[in-house]
C-alpha cells in the first residue's frame, strides 16, 4: 500500500486545494498517470502517480484544502495482478485487425500507457482540422492545434494560421474571444483558486505600492521589419520576444528596477535579486497566469522567443508547473494581443516595475517633419515610486526603447 502525501510542490507553499480528482477509488492507475488537479496560490497542477496500482483511499474531497505532508491518496501497489495472458477470452470469432480498445487491466511495470493511440475508429470529427504537414509544423513550434482558429474552408487550420498563431499576430485581428469569458452563473461563489489568488495579489499591490506610469508610442517599422527578416532565416523572432530581451539587458544595467521593497511588520528593506527573471502575463481559461523566463539576461533573443512560445503554450494547456510561475523579478504584459492600446497595469507583489505593450497598428506619426502612417507600438512603464524615481524610470524606458529602435544591437554578442 503506497501512501502519497501532498508533496512540497513549490517554494513556500504550505497547502493546496483539491480541484478535481482524476481517478476514483478502485481505479487502476499506471505510474505517471495524473491523479488529481490541485491548486496553490500560484498555479494549478496535476500530480502524477508515483506508483502503479489500484486507488484505495482519496485523502479529501474536491474543494478541500490540504496541507503539505497530509495524505493525498493511498494506492494499493503491492498485490500481484493476474498475468492473465493465457486466460484471456479468445472471443472465438473476433474479427482480425480490430482489437477492442480496452484499457490495460494487467500491470507489469512502469511505462506510460498510450496517451491517445489512434485507431481506425478515431473520429475525424473530433480532432483539429489540419493536414499532416500542418500538424507536424504545429508540433515543431509547440503550438496546440486545438487553440488555433482555422481560416480555411470548414475551419481548416492552414500552415499560415499556425505560423501567425505562433508569432502571436493572428492576422492582425484580435484573438478570438473565449465564449466562456465573463460568464458565471448568478449566485455567490467562494473566492478561491486562481481567482482568489489574483484577488489577494492585486489588492496587496494596489494598497501597498504607490504606482507611477510613463507612456510612449514608438515607430515599430524597424522592429517589425527585423521580425519579418528573421522568419526567412528560420529563426522567427517576435516583438514580444525582442522586448523581453531588451528589458533583460536594461534590468541588468539598472538593478534597482529589478529589485523590490520588502515591507513587513518588522522589516523594511530593499531587495536586489541576483537574477533577472522576467514574467510574461498570459491569459488562460481560468485566469491570468504569469510564467517566468528565468535568467533572461543570459538568453539570446532566439532562446527567449522559444521560451515564451513554450510557456504560453503550456499556460493555455494548463500544464505549467509551480516552478514556471515563481521567482519573477519583473513583469511584461502584452495586452496588445487582446487588442488594447493603452493600459495602466498593476505591479505584482514582490516586484517594483512592469512593462506593458499595446497593439501595433498603423497610426499617424511625424517622420522628418511629415505626418505619415507608420506601425506604432504603444508602451507603458509602471514603477513603484518608493524605489524608482522619475529619472530612473525614464532612463530605463529610454534604454529599452533604444534596443527596440535598433534590434540588431540585441543580436550582437552582448549576452552576459
Amino acid at each position, binding site marked *: 500500500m503506497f501512501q502519497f502525501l501532498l508533496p512540497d510542490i513549490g517554494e513556500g507553499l504550505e497547502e493546496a486545494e483539491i480541484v478535481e480528482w482524476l481517478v476514483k477509488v478502485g481505479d487502476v492507475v499506471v505510474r505517471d498517470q495524473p491523479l488529481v488537479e490541485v491548486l496553490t496560490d500560484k498555479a494549478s497542477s496535476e500530480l502524477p502517480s508515483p506508483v502503479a496500482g489500484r486507488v484505495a483511499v482519496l485523502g479529501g474531497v474536491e474543494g478541500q484544502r490540504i496541507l503539505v505532508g497530509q495524505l493525498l491518496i493511498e494506492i494499493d501497489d503491492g498485490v500481484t495482478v493476474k498475468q492473465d495472458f493465457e486466460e484471456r477470452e479468445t472471443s472465438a470469432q473476433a474479427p482480425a485487425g480490430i*482489437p477492442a480498445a480496452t484499457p490495460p*487491466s494487467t500491470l507489469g511495470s512502469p*511505462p506510460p500507457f498510450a496517451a491517445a493511440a489512434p485507431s481506425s475508429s*478515431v473520429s475525424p470529427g473530433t480532432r483539429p*482540422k489540419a*493536414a499532416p504537414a500542418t500538424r507536424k509544423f504545429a508540433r515543431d513550434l509547440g503550438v496546440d492545434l486545438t487553440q488555433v482558429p482555422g481560416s480555411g474552408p470548414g475551419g481548416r487550420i492552414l500552415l499560415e494560421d499556425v505560423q501567425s498563431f505562433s508569432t502571436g499576430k493572428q492576422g492582425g485581428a484580435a484573438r478570438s474571444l473565449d465564449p466562456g469569458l465573463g460568464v458565471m452563473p448568478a449566485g455567490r461563489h467562494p473566492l478561491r483558486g486562481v481567482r482568489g489568488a489574483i484577488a489577494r495579489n492585486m489588492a496587496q499591490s494596489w494598497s501597498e505600492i504607490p504606482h507611477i506610469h510613463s507612456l510612449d508610442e514608438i515607430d515599430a517599422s524597424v522592429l517589425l521589419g527585423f521580425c519579418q527578416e528573421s522568419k526567412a532565416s528560420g529563426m522567427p523572432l517576435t516583438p514580444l520576444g525582442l522586448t523581453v530581451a531588451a528589458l533583460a539587458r536594461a534590468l541588468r544595467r539598472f538593478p534597482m528596477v529589478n529589485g523590490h521593497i520588502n515591507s513587513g511588520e518588522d522589516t523594511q528593506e530593499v531587495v536586489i535579486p541576483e537574477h533577472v527573471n522576467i514574467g510574461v502575463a498570459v491569459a488562460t481559461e481560468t485566469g491570468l497566469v504569469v510564467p517566468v523566463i528565468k535568467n533572461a539576461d543570459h538568453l539570446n533573443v532566439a532562446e527567449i522567443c522559444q521560451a515564451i512560445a513554450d510557456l504560453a503554450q503550456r499556460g493555455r494547456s494548463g500544464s505549467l508547473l509551480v516552478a514556471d510561475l515563481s521567482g519573477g523579478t519583473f513583469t511584461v504584459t502584452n495586452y496588445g494581443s487582446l487588442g488594447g492600446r493603452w493600459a495602466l497595469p498593476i505591479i505584482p507583489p514582490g516586484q517594483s516595475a512592469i512593462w506593458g505593450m499595446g497593439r501595433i497598428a498603423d497610426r499617424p506619426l511625424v517622420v522628418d517633419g511629415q505626418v505619415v502612417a507608420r506601425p506604432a507600438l504603444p508602451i507603458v512603464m509602471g514603477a513603484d515610486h518608493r524605489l524608482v524615481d522619475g529619472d530612473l524610470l525614464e532612463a530605463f524606458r529610454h534604454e529599452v526603447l533604444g534596443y527596440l529602435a535598433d534590434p540588431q544591437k540585441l543580436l550582437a554578442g552582448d549576452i552576459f
Partner: protein
Amino acid sequence: MVVGEVAESLDLLVIGGGPGGYAAALHGARLGRTVTLIEKEHLGGVCLNVGCIPSKALLEVADAAALPGRVADWGVAATTSIDMAQVQNHLQQVVSDLTGGVMQLLSQAGVQVVSGTARFSRPNRVAVEHGDSLSHFEFADVIVATGSRPIDLPDLPVDGQRVVGSAELLFSSELPENLVLVGGGYIGVELATAFAKLGSHVTIVEAEKQLLTGFDKRVARLVARGLEKLGVTLLLNHRAQKLESEGLLVAGPEGSVALPADKICVVVGRRPNSDTVGLREAGVLINSQGLVAVDAQRRAADHIFVIGDLTEGPALAHKATAEAEVAAEVACGGAEVFDPTVIPMIVFSDPQVLSVGVDPSQAKKQGLESFRFPFAASGRARTMGDTEGYVSVVADGAGTVVGVHAVGSHVAELAGEAVLAIEMAATVEDLARTIHAHPTLGESFMEAALGLAGRPVHVSRVSKNEKS
C-alpha cells in the same frame, strides 16, 4: 542467465522483419544508425510471406479462373482450368520477388540481418536463439515489431492437415472440395472469395450476426450477398465446436449440425506476439489482450519502442509501416509522433470494401450528413460489367469530409483519395470541384460530394443523410 556470457554491443536493434520492422530498419539506417535486424523466419513477415501478398495473388488467380462466367454475356466464350501446383509456384514467385526486394533494400542500406529468435533477458539486452546456438546482444535502442499470430480455438487445434491456418490454406497444393472457414472477419471473407471462385464448396461459420464485425452493416450485407452469389454458405450466429467423424460440428440457434469438410481453416483473429519476445521482462506494460502500452512516440520504456500489431489499433501492415518511421525518428532523437487522423481498412472481397473514418450509421447517430452514389450510375462501372455497390461520403456540419465508405469492384484501389481527403481536412466542395478523370471509378467520389453539396449530377434523387 549463463555465467560469463558475452554480449555483442549493437547500436539500433530491430526485432522482427515484417512491414513494421524492415521499414524501421531502413529509416534507422537512413538516419545514420548502425542497424541490426533480427528475423526468426522470413523477411517481409506475415504480410509478404503468408498474408496480404499471397492472398491477393491468389485472388487474382481466382478472378482469372472465374472469368468465363463474367464474360459470357459479352460475346466471349472461354474455359479455364486450374493447376494448383502451378498456382503455388506463381504465389511463391510473387512472394520471393518481393522478399528478395526487401533483402536487397536492407543490404543496400547496410542493415545487418541476423537470423534467429530474440528474447529480452534484460531491459537492454536480448538473447538470440538460432538452431542450437545462443548469442547475446546489447543495444542502445530497440524497436520491437514482432507482429501477431493466429488465435487458436482450444477445441479445434490446428494440425496442419485437415485443420489449418490461413497460411497453410493459401499454400496448399490441392483444392479442397469442401472448405469450412471458421471466422467471418476480413481474412475469412477473402479466403472464401478466392476458394469459391477456384471451385471449392465454401462455408463460413461466424459467431456474430454479421460478417466483417466492426464494419458498417450495409457494407457487411453487400459482402454477404456477394459471397452467396459465389455459392458460399454463410452460417452466421454459429460456433464451430469440434471435429467429428462426419465433419465439423457447429452449433447455431436451431441446434447443431455436422458440416462435411475436407479442409477447415481457423481464422478467428490474431493475437500480439508480445509474450514470445519477453517484453514483460524488459519492463514494459502489457494489457490483458497482449497489447503493449506505448506513448504517442511508440516508446514503451526508455530506449524500447514497440510498433505494429503489438500496439493498439488495427493489426494492419500500413499502420505498422507508419509507426516504424515514427519510432525510428524518435529513437534517433527526432520529435515525431504517431498522429494519423484515420487508418484505412480494405477488404478484397467481391465486391471489395473500403472503410475510412466515420461510417454512415455512426454519422446518422451524430447527426452528420452522408451521400451514397451508386455504381449503377457510373459509366465506368457499366463498362467493367459490375455495377454492384456505391461510394458513400460523410461530412461534418462545416462540410469537412470525415468518412468514406465504399463497396464495389476495385474500390480498395480508391483508398488513397479517401484517406488523403480526410487527412487534409478536405471539404465536400474541394472534392466536388476537383475534376476527376472520366470514365473512372474515382469519379464516384466527386459524384457523392456533389450529392452532399446538394447538386448531384448523375443521380436524380437526392439521397442525403443516407436519406436514401
